[in-house]
């Protein structure tokens, strides 16, 4: 049969955003692929050059609308590296708690979008129900549902509200039970297993060479996590273990391993949040005033010329990195250059190539299992 090119996207349920996957097929089999990105390129890096260091945070929120808190945190750590800001320990704990709640919400969004890819619509309604609990918590901190603008250079915007800790504990404990329900529904579903097992193999070394990171690599059996390897925040004081999945084949991790590793990661996030609330300096039920030295330290606003700041941060999809250059007096409070590295920008071209050899019907399962997000890819 003659081979032909099919275009999937930019409007296609598989893409989880706006991008195009061009697929060359021989019958039902994929023989070549090409990814085309850039449909929602907003020029964030250029916009950042015309903003104060503090004004950049909202733009970083909008890099990925599913995990705004982790992206804002990622920028804040780079800016603090550049401006040499001190951060109170309580603020670090609050950032950790907010980032892990965001990780829960983001993984639930992934699972809710991945379910319909596989043909399980119930999953979407369940995940959206539980994600709402965590969005409510983040709303209490940041004031809005998706874009929080919560971390500040040198601390956080405001302390945890009174009663926040109790609500976090109640909701994470409820969610830990719900995770068992999810597993009962999914791991015993033949359709789920048949669609995911043995599909979309990727080895650890090939993924690292191609720049893939985070849960996708841990699914292939390697414990590598920025949170212990390049420590930031207070992860070294918290009780947790990175989730690592044993791959079932020499060909590496399949879609099922990537699903399992994210389920375990949600458990670890619950564990971290609960433990951090126990250990937080100043107590979990205290509410310090805005700008109190327990949650905020005033930071310099201008960076000297030639100074650079870099952060390597475990975002929900892998390692997100910011590289910020200071501009000296001529640039005022603005940076000279902000460079953003999104984990998905390198993952999507890699995933496109791993599809070769599988059937057209496997494409949504493979793509969905890597958790694509186009907002952060195109910037």
């Amino acid at each position, binding site marked *: 049969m003659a081979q032909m090119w099919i275009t999937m996207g930019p409007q296609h349920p598989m893409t989880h955003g706006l991008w195009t996957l061009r697929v060359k097929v021989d019958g039902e089999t994929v023989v070549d692929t090409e990814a085309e990105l*850039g449909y929602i*390129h907003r020029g964030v*890096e*250029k*916009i950042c*050059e*015309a*903003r*104060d260091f503090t004004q950049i945070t909202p733009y970083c929120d909008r890099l990925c609308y599913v995990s705004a808190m982790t992206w804002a945190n990622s920028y804040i750590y780079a800016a603090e*590296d550049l401006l040499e800001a*001190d951060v109170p320990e309580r603020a670090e704990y609050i950032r950790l708690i907010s980032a892990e709640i965001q990780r829960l919400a983001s993984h639930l969004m992934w699972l809710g979008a991945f379910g319909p890819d596989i043909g399980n619509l119930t999953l979407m309604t369940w995940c959206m129900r539980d994600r709402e609990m965590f969005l409510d918590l983040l709303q209490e901190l940041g004031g809005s549902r998706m874009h929080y603008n919560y971390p500040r250079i040198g601390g956080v915007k405001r302390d945890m509200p009174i009663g926040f800790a109790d609500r976090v504990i109640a909701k994470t404990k409820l969610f830990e039970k719900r995770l068992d329900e999810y597993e009962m529904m999914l791991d015993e579903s033949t359709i789920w297993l048949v669609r995911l097992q043995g599909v979309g193999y990727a*080895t*650890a*070394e*090939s993924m*690292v*060479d*191609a*720049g893939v990171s985070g849960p996708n690599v841990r699914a*292939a*059996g*390697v*414990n*590598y996590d920025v*949170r*212990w*390897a*390049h*420590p*930031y925040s207070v992860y*070294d004081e918290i*009780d*947790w*273990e*990175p989730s*690592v*999945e*044993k*791959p*079932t*084949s*020499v060909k*590496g991790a399949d879609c099922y391993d990537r699903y399992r590793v994210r389920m375990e990661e949600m458990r670890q996030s619950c564990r971290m949040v609960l433990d951090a609330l126990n250990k937080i300096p100043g107590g979990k039920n205290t509410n310090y005033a805005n700008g109190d030295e327990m949650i905020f330290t005033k930071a310099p606003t201008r960076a000297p010329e030639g100074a650079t700041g*870099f952060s*390597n941060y475990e975002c929900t999809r892998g*390692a997100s*990195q910011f*590289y910020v*250059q200071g501009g000296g*007096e001529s*640039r005022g*409070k*603005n940076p000279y*250059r902000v*460079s953003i*590295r999104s984990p998905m*920008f390198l993952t999507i071209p*890699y995933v496109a190539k791993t599809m070769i050899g599988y059937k057209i019907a496997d494409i949504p399962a493979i793509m969905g299992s890597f958790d694509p997000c186009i907002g952060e890819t*195109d*910037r």
Partner: protein
Amino acid sequence: MVGSITPEQNASAAEACLAAINDRFGGSGIESSIQNHSNDKKYAFVRIVCPPQHWIALAKWMKYDLSVNYCSMVTGTHFPDGSPERGWEVAYHFLRQPIQDQKPNTCTVHDVEKLSGMDIPMEFEVFMPLPQGDSPTVPSIQSIWVGADWNEKETWDLVGIKFEGHVNMHRVLNPNDSPEGFHPLQKQHKLRYHDHNEMYDDPQGFMRKPADEGRIK
């Protein structure tokens, strides 16, 4: 509880890398140093300043002898007001990750305290200053790290750094029909409010000027 890399492990790995680089490339114009992040943790990383002509040799050596297996980002910067020998700069960020393929039904859970030598994760920053001019060019490392492929595409697309030897270079974030030579992160393209005082002059802005207007800040 998982342990984190300790400052001692981090410092010893950075020093070992620095010594290895100086041993291999000392006197060739490649300058390396240990820097510390200024955050709480003060973790060390290795910064290398490399002239473009030595880049391929250094890159291959880093990949195969220093186990630097992860090319995480490539950043180009335009300095139109810089010195004649530094009109452009390419900054590469690499990570060393202790990762290997797993046999079926096994997984590596690192005992962090026992990691040593080449297994300690380390961060590398390579700066490559380029002279003023219209065509900044560096050799491509696409064939050394697969991850550098799309990073270099992006850097050419947005900043206009040419990567010599890069196969299949094309626009990734800008539209495919963007005019030739249009690279939006070059500094001659200015956004509204590019200069930090401009917004105060703008009728739609704040309609006020800061008290220290005109003074050096």
